[in-house]
Structures are given as C-alpha cells and as structure tokens.
C-alpha cells in the first residue's frame, strides 16, 4: 500500500509543499492575515460619535453642556473662524449658533451632518420643554450574517481555493517540466493518470487544513458561523478545489517556463479577484456584465459558499452555481489531458 506509486507520488507532492515555508504562508497565513485586517477595518461600529460645534456667544456654554449630555454627541464651543474651518473640513458635522432662532449650519448632503442636526434639534427642543407625543420602544438587533466579515470569510475561502488550486498544481507541473523531471518520469513505467491524480489527492489533504484554518479563525475571532450544514460546506469546497485543480492543470499543460505559467496564472486569476465578489458584491458591476461575471467559476463558488454559510441554503438549492463550478473543472481537465506536454 505504502509503495503504491499513487501513494508515493502524493507523498512527494505533500513533502515538497510543506517543506516550502513560503508556500505555507501564502496558503494558510495570508488568508488569515487578510481576514483579520479586513475584519478589523470594516467591523460594524455604528455611526459612532458625532462632533458638534457651538458658536461662541450668549448662552453658548448652557447649550454645549446640554448637547454634550446627549448620547452620541460631542460638543465644543468655538470661535467663529475656527468653527467655520472645522465645519468646512468636516471635523465637526454641525455648527449650532445659539440665539433665537437657533441656527443650524451644516452640509445637507452629508449623512453625518443630517444625523447631527436631528440629534441636536432633539436636545434643543427638549430643553425648551417639548414632550413625546407617543410612547415608543427601541429593540436593538445585530443580525449575524449581515456584517462585512460574514460576507468576507466565504469569499476568502473561495479565493484561497482558487489560488492554491492554480498555484499548487500549475507551479509544480511546470517546475517538474523545466527540471526535466516530467521527462524522467516518462522514462519509467509510471502511469500518467497516477501522476495527475497525485495532485488531486494532495490538494484534498491540504484543502481540509486550509478550510479548517480559515473557517476556524473566522469563528474564533469574529464569531462567523456556518448556518447551513458543515457537510454542505465540505462538499462545495471539495468540488471547488477539484475544479480549480483542473484549471491549474490546463494553465500548466503547455507552459515550458515558470515565467510563462506565472503570467498565465495571473491572467486567469486577476479578473476573478476583481469580478467574482470576493471583497465586494459583484452586483455593483453593470447589468450587461452580469452574465459573464456569473459564469466565472469563482463567482459561482463564492455564491454557493455564501448561500450555505450565511443563508443556510441546502445543496439541492444550489444547482446552478455548483453546475458552473463542475463544468469548469471537467472541461479544463479534459482539455488539459488532450494538450498536456509530457516532456
């Protein structure tokens, strides 16, 4: 069993990978760093504190104290010149001029400023004795799955499957070809199918670790859960990994140099990094582009992963994206086998 060529080839693949520290970083470290950085940068903080200026003059300190007491407002008394400068540069959202009438100066196209005006007006009116006309009650909810990080983790998972599939297969194949190792294997009775299958098998082993690392990190750091079943996530990631391994095989099928295959790989991956909705929704692209964007394998994979992880969809509802992912894999693999340069 241990001396079966498929086992030995797969072991060689895996050893070459895990003995390469750079590869370990790009496959395991990088997506986690990315998730961490983006998760922190775009965490949902709410609108935060709004800064409001009160113009120096009669009654300024009373008004400023009242405003400062309101939750979410921070008020300061400023001279006229300083107040105008801070308003113009957006450091304060609103300038309140005490007097009768109380004057609000603000840029009405800025959401923050309009919010500040509403909050400030509430304080001013209540100070003059306005009471609530109706009884109201606030119910605050933070919906898991609606945060940016919830959107991001499945996208990073998809992007990582693409990257390690293309690089993992494409790079190794071309390296073996440039080092004439492929030719040396051809001089043995080794079966070609064993050689190609060894890539798939080693990908599946590392796939498990990659997915566990990223999903585990998302859950531990940001409480990004999986709404659907874990087996559905497993199925989709395996399908995605196989599909991109096929694409990697196709990209590497003819290239004779590392430079050539790197160029091809970037040519294939770059459009998908941008278009396939990894970092932001592809709905932002024009309507005319949508059919093309949706036909990309990474788009389909990201859609399927998000459907399961965020919405809790079942596999049976995901026929279209999974079909696209499968089709890309099968077609790439078949074409790659036809045109593969074995020496």
């Amino acid at each position, binding site marked *: 069993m241990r*001396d*079966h*060529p498929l*086992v*030995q*080839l797969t*072991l*060689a693949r895996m*050893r*070459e990978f895990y*003995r*390469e520290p750079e590869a370990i970083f790009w496959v395991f470290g990088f997506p986690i760093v990315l998730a961490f950085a983006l998760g922190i940068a775009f965490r949902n903080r709410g609108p935060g504190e709004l800064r409001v200026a009160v113009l120096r003059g009669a009654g300024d300190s009373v008004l400023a104290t009242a405003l400062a007491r309101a939750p979410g407002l921070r008020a300061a008394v400023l001279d006229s010149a300083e107040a105008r400068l801070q308003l113009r540069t957006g450091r304060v959202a609103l300038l309140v001029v005490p007097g009768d009438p109380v004057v609000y100066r603000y840029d009405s196209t800025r959401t923050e400023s309009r919010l500040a005006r509403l909050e400030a007006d509430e304080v001013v009116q209540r100070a003059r004795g306005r009471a609530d006309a109706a009884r109201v009650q606030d119910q605050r909810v933070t919906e898991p799955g609606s945060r940016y990080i919830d959107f991001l983790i499945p996208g990073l998972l998809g992007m990582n499957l693409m990257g390690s599939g293309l690089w993992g297969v494409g790079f190794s194949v071309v390296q073996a070809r440039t*080092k*004439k*190792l492929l*030719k*040396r*294997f*051809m*001089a*043995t*009775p*080794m079966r070609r199918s064993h050689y190609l299958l060894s890539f798939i098998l080693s990908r599946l082993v590392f796939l498990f670790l990659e997915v566990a690392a990223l999903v585990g990190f998302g859950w531990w750091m940001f409480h990004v859960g999986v709404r659907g079943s874990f087996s559905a996530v497993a199925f989709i990631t395996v399908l995605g990994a196989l599909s991109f391994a096929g694409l990697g095989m196709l990209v590497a099928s003819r290239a004779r140099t590392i430079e050539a295959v790197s160029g091809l790989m970037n040519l294939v991956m770059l459009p998908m990094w941008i278009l396939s909705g990894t970092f932001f929704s592809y709905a932002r692209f024009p309507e005319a582009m949508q059919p093309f964007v949706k036909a990309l394998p990474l788009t389909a994979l990201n859609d399927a992963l998000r459907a399961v992880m965020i919405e809790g969809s079942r596999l049976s509802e995901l026929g279209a994206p999974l079909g696209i992912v499968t089709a890309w894999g099968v077609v790439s693999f078949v074409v790659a086998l036809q045109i593969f340069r074995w*020496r």
Partner: protein
Amino acid sequence: MKRYADVVAVAGLDLTVNARECFGLLGPNGAGKTTTIEILEGLTAPDRGEVEILGMRWTGGASTRALRERLGIQLQDTQLADKLTVEETVRLFRSFYRAAHSVEEVLGLVGLEEKRTAWVGKLSGGQKQRLAVACALVSRPDLLFLDEPTTGLDPQSRRQLWDVVGRFRAAGGTVLLTTHYMEEAERLCDRVAIMDHGKVIALGTPRSLIASLGAEHVVEFALADGATRAPTPAELAALPGVRAVRPALDRTALTVAEVHRAVPALLGLLERRGAELSLLATHHATLEDVFVSLTGRQLRDA
C-alpha cells in the same frame, strides 16, 4: 533518422548493442548522441527508422510499459526534487516498478547509504549524479542507459561512478552510455561508436579504433621560431616509424609506431634545419587521436 526543423540531428545510424556489453556513443557536443539515446529510450520518436530493444519495440500501451520495466534510464539534465531526501526519491522511483531493489540495496550499489536522510538539494554534483543512477538502477534493469553520466564531475566523483557501472556490468547488465570523455569510453566500453554531425564515423573496440591509426603513439612538437624553418609534412612523413602527420595551428602531431626510432630521427631533422623546439611530448594514442585523425578537429572544442 531525426530532423529538427532544418537540422538533421541524427541520420542513418545502424547499430547493434549486444547483451552484457558496454557500448559507448562518443562524440563532441551536438554530434547527436543524446538524440540517438533518447530515440532508443523511447522518449523521442524517430522520423524514420526502427528501434528494437530487448526484442521489443516502442509501440505504445502495455508493451511499452513492459519494456520500461526492464530499462534503467539516467537522463542528461534531470534535476531531482531538491526538497525530497535521497531515500524518499529512491522510494518514489522504486514504486513505479514491479520488481525492484530495496532502497538499502540500491543506495549500497551507488555508495550513498550515509546520505540517506539528506535533502537532494544539499548533495554535491557527484552525489546527485549517483542518485540519478540509483533511480535508474532501482528497477533491476537488464539494460542501463547513461547519458553523459560524468559530465562536469571532478575526477574522484567520476571514478566512483565508473565503479558503479563496473559493478552493474559484473552482475550481468548491459550498458549504453554517451560521453565526450575519451578516457571514460576507453575505460568502460567494450565497443564505441564515434559520432560526428549525426553520423557514426567509426565503430569498434577502443583498441581496434586506436590500432586503426596504424600506430600506438603520438608525438607532438612545436617550434620556438615559428614556421620559417619548419620541416614540410612530406619530410616528416618520410621519417622512420611515422605513420601520419597532422599539422595544426600551434603544434604538429605525428602518429608513430616506434617512438624510439621516430624521435631521434625527428630531432636530427630539426637540428639540420636549425629549428629550435619549444615543445616535445609523446603519449599513447587515444580515442581522442582517432577523432582528430578522422575529423581534423579536437573533441572538446569541436
């Protein structure tokens, strides 16, 4: 016959290698040695011609695989994976074959037992080459192909590899190797084919090829004061014991049957002409001299 674009790499080769023989393809770079050996190995398809190995042909499918089971092949420019150990590399190649040596046995054959757990990338050039031969030997081949196995190696590594080939032959194996080192061919090969420009220009045992020069020694000399007082080739050829004269740019080489008669005669002739020697050397004739006499060029810089 094999043609690449307009260049005919190998044309009209007709060779038979006998079982248990060590056969050498000898020639300068670009002579067509590698093309020839790769056609025999079934890695390159000839444009014309037939190849029969161990009674089989490269017809593809199961028979090709059966033939590969019986061959051991070392290619000229294979770089084995740097990040695998010696043992892992041998075990990988071993897994491709039905019958095979154990890893211990084959590392013993090439003397790499101590490097068993070392990464391939850390090996010296000679050790890498012995590992490449180990990967060729692991299948217990009947026929071993070696393509320039010692090119670029230091003398000690070269001798170690020669010992490996010697042990394989002692165990009854057949070897076909290419080299551009005449010394290697003389040392290892029962028969050699000298190739140039894709053709075999001489074929035989090293001894018979050297004997074909008609003499066993080569006397080389050069003159201090240039060509003005140099004897003519006809004068040199007339000296006793001289079989052939090969003038070159910086020196003249004489193929000589009896050094003890030719050298005094040569010195006498030069003295009569008043020419002063700047170099005088004699050596046993080698395959190198055979190549030079056939092509008029040196092997190394041909």
